[in-house]
């Protein structure tokens, strides 16, 4: 487990063909680790009948809605939480 709750992370802006669970609207966006959910076989491999091993750490990541949508006019405390696998995250520096 690489990240701790409270760590800032950024979702990789990668394009990967095939079955990807990471939503496109979160790619390239910064958020924080809300919690560690557990380690699970990689669904990107399970989708093709493979074992999905080794298991991949899965985190609940929080995002500010204002960071996700241009011209967002809702309350600043509007958050979005998404479950993102560790291999889709990189440490975010420069955000405190």
């Amino acid at each position, binding site marked *: 487990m690489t990240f701790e709750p409270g760590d800032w992370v950024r979702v990789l802006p990668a*394009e990967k063909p*095939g*079955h*990807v669970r990471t*939503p*496109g*609207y979160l790619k390239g966006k910064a958020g924080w680790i809300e919690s560690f959910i557990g380690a699970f076989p990689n*669904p990107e491999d*399970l*989708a*093709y*009948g493979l074992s*999905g091993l080794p298991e991949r750490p899965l985190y609940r990541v929080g995002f500010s809605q204002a960071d*996700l*949508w241009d011209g967002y006019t809702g309350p600043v405390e509007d958050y979005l939480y998404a479950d993102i696998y560790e291999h889709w995250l990189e440490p975010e520096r420069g955000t405190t």
Partner: protein
Amino acid sequence: MGGVHDMGGSPAGPIDRVQHEVEDWERHADAINGALGAKGLQSTDQHRRAIESLEDYRDLSYYERWVAATEKLLVEKGVLTSDEIDERAAEIERRWNGP
């Protein structure tokens, strides 16, 4: 760009909130998926991948996608052929329509 299903945040109109009654064939679609999963012939991740790869994804309803993806997977795995599925469907339709 992600797959055709990866449409979160895309521009869209109002949400259709009208409920519809679940139809019998939709219950069957759900039950068949459960049975195939229990027998190890299909997994949720495989089924999702097959759904996302349907060329007519946007034209299909929720359970139409389920059925089409299940057929695609079963053919892909060699469990059934398209002809076997079509013949069986035609037989059921004949029986349904009565003599």
